[in-house]
């Protein structure tokens, strides 16, 4: 299957999931109150995160053909996203400053003078375009990692915590083994062994992120198992699987969500370090920063590359961190504390 079809399907699935969540939240008093509280406290941050998500979604919807191919034949055959289409025909030959009408070096007139809000990079690509595309990469890193880590963590954390015994011992052993390897080194070792690429990086991040979450889940399951209504369900002969699915997992979800929102910034920051080591994800802000950091020595200084990527990264993480903090305060004022 072509990559863009897959990407479009993913958008549809995500939107459907989003709609389902809205329906669920509306019906569930606890969650709707919590989210209302979040909105009240951190309106601005939520809006910022929403904006990033919107950009990422727009960059994920892509199709072949259509307008704006600007003569170059290859583009007509390629899937281009909504964001790509906004920037069609803005390719220059090399650097230009923000809103300039001539090239940075040589002073040749530009193809699209005055339209590059954040200038262009060494290959003449619009920096704003690349920065916006970075949102998709960042959320992809966070999202795919989540998709890998949450099921793993739930599977292992819940089974270990709920059934206990040998199983618990085994899972706990694997967890403590992985947890005792320094995080960044584990990440690097995994990527070096798996190879370079978006999926490999996400897989490695998922494997490293899974452990922390699994621990939280296991601990909480241990507590839930002893609660009256779970004991009662068991006494009534409800099957174990049904108890886990109906009673345990729903009561873990808030922890999972909080942990992940708080983990998100760590994931994106780790990717920036990987980019510096040359094993990051193509098109990420980390890669942009790494490509642009030496440009600061140019005279006159080429600052817009680095600034754009750094600001985009900073903005997203700041908003996510604020949302995460607020969520933690609202959903779980006491039991959960970020450690490490």
């Amino acid at each position, binding site marked *: 299957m072509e990559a863009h079809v897959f990407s479009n399907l993913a958008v549809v699935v995500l939107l459907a999931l989003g709609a389902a969540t809205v329906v669920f939240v509306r019906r569930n008093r606890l969650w709707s109150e919590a989210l209302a509280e979040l909105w009240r406290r951190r309106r601005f941050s939520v809006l910022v995160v929403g904006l990033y998500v919107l950009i990422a979604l727009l960059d994920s919807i892509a199709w072949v053909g259509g307008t704006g191919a600007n003569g*170059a*034949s*290859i583009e007509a*055959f*390629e899937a281009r996203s909504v964001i790509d289409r906004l920037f069609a025909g803005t390719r220059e*030959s*090399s650097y230009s400053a923000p809103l300039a009408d001539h090239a940075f*070096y040589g002073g040749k007139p530009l193809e699209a003078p005055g339209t590059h809000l954040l200038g262009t990079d*060494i*290959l003449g690509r619009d920096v704003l375009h690349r920065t916006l595309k970075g949102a998709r990469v960042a959320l992809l890193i966070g999202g795919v990692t989540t998709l890998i880590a949450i099921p793993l963590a739930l599977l292992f954390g819940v089974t270990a915590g709920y059934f206990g015994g040998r199983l618990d011992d085994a899972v706990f052993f694997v967890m403590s083994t992985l947890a005792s390897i320094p995080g960044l080194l584990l990440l690097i070792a995994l990527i*070096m062994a798996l*190879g*370079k*690429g978006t999926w490999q990086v996400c897989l490695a991040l998922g494997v490293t992120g899974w452990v922390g979450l699994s621990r939280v889940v296991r601990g909480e399951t241990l507590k839930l198992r002893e609660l009256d209504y779970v004991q009662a369900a068991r006494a009534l002969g409800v099957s174990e699987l049904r108890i886990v699915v109906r009673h345990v997992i729903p009561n873990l979800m808030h922890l999972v969500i909080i942990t992940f929102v708080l983990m998100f910034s760590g994931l994106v920051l780790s990717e920036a370090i990987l*980019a510096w080591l*040359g*094993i990051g994800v*193509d098109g990420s802000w980390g*890669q942009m920063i*790494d*490509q642009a950091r*030496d*440009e*600061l*020595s*140019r*005279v006159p200084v080429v600052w817009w590359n680095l600034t754009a990527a750094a600001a985009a990264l900073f903005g997203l993480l700041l908003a996510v961190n604020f949302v995460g903090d607020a969520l933690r305060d609202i959903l779980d004022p006491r039991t959960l504390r970020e450690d490490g």
Partner: protein
Amino acid sequence: MSGGSQSSLREGREAAAVARPLRWAGLSVAGLLLGGLLACSNDPYPQADADRKVYYTALREAPRTLDPAEAYNVTAHAITGNVYDTLLEYHYLKRPYTLIPGLAEAVPEAEPQPDGGVIYRFRLREGLLFAPDPAFALGGEGRTTREVVAADVAFQLMRLADPEENSPVVDPFSNIAGFREFQQALVAAREADPELASLPPHEQYARVGGIEGVRVLGSHDLEIALSGPYPQILYWFALEFSTPVPWEAVAWYDGVTRDRFDDHPVGTGPYRLTEYDKQFRVILEANPNWYGVQNPEWKAPGAVYPSEGEPGDAEAGLLPPDVVGQPLPFIERIEFRREKESIPTFNKFLQGYYDASGIVKESFDKIVQNDRLSPEMAERGIELSKSIKPTIFYLGVNMNDELLGHPAGERGRLLRQAISHAVDEEQWIELFVNGRGIPAQSPVPPGLFGYEPEYENPARVYDPDRARKLLAEAGYPEGIDPETGKPLRINFDSYATSSAQLLQEQFIADALRAVGLDVRIDATTYNQFQGKVQDGRYQMFFWGWSADYPDPENFYFLLTCDMRRAESGGPNYTNFCDPEFDELFARMRVRDNDEERLAVMREMRELLERERPWIEIHHPETYGLTHAWLKHRKSFGISFPMTKYQDLDVAKRAELRRAWNEPITWPAWALAGVAIAVVVPGIRTFFRERQ
């Protein structure tokens, strides 16, 4: 509720009582910090070395080995080239490169033999000594050195043949008669007698009997017999691979009870290694046993400053009368500091802490304007020198590929020609090396025999329209593959280790996309890339090659059938194989530099114009910067350090370093002022309000 107000009252009073010492503590910390700032300095070297003739240079990566049989890259040669002298050397100033005698008394002449072989006779200087080293105790109690004899060269040549040493230069030395036979005999003897392998190498070699074509006649005469003509062999005697190596050092530094020989060179050069910390620094000190120091009266060509150079050298200050004929070396110590990042390294050069440097591309416009030093840099006394490196960067095509290579026949040829017309190498040079380079027209770089500056490769003209036409001729109009109705999909296999390198490859991919080819970069790690090469799953790649010695043979051999990666694991990554080309190569390889050789090379060039396994990009041009205090330095394209010919004006260096590195302290004061102005009233107001 009244209790609350009471406690807050008390709190306020307590806080006020604590606030005063806090304020004092704060002030004293600020004072300490400011004191630290005033005493700060960015001088990275201990004061004690300030007035010694120490040459400082950066070490970008740690060399893997310093064993002269193995070391094969620029970083290693920067050290081994100073530590190991060779039988022959290059003249410091003359261009084209000219050989002069080094440890040998004269440059030998080829003596053709009736059986088709060739003999070269070397005579070593008498009284040469190795650098002092405890290893020589093996030859007699309390000895720290000994005389260099012809057998030491023979020993090293045998080491090259020894498969255990993994020498990368077995091929060229195989021209010596009996070289391969010795190699096989050694392997066979080791298999037959496992005991043998536990002996020190020199005893093993003695048992096997030596190389037939390496004849040691007395202590100072050496005869090298080649099985056929191979004039390039003399260049190999100017490289550290053929330096005399004492058997004592190899036996002593066995890597078990002591250091490894790879980390502990014992040689005959003007310097010797005294500290070797790969992460931190490498120090070379002048060798007291060097023949230039021991026997200055010889006035040996490699031990005194030369009296003649190429036209223009005198004007460039490279032949100062007070230096010509003076004994070498001038610099007493060479200190390499490990530097991983290019920008900090370059900035340290600008601050005067490195004596010479290349230019990082980002700072180019600050340093060079209109192809000359910027006024700011010229005012600092920095000098600019340019030299073309005998190196080529090219875009290679896997000729075993179904779409692009030999199997695709004429269509593949047209496709490669189209690609060749689509890449604008001048723009590439402009963007990525600030125009420091020469657009490559053929595999042979400038400075080598057979490079013709006026030659323009008709296939390397940037012409996207022509590229599109060729695509149509190949059966892919507008780049569309008629079978799929979509643009032709080509993988560009990248193993970029840095984001910057990836940008360069992106440029090439974009250029090919512009003519309608759907080129996608497949970025992997180096290992994955090698895996793809192994399995033949690669189409296009970006690669470079640097000359080992100044002869075009060292470039054209990269395209011969024998060197194919897929067949023999050789460095012909394109797997290009053309019997006609091989036949021409065999002819040019053995000829001296004459008209006939040139004619053959022109034929090879024409063949490549048509076949296009390589799309040549550029020959890099090195811009070297030196500070005014580094005297009579001339840049040398091939990787020879040539440090012994250079000198430092230490007093001038110290003075300029001081002048350039006065710290700017006012921001610290300003910052401290602002901090005090904000924090102190803030805290005061706060306590007042709380009260």
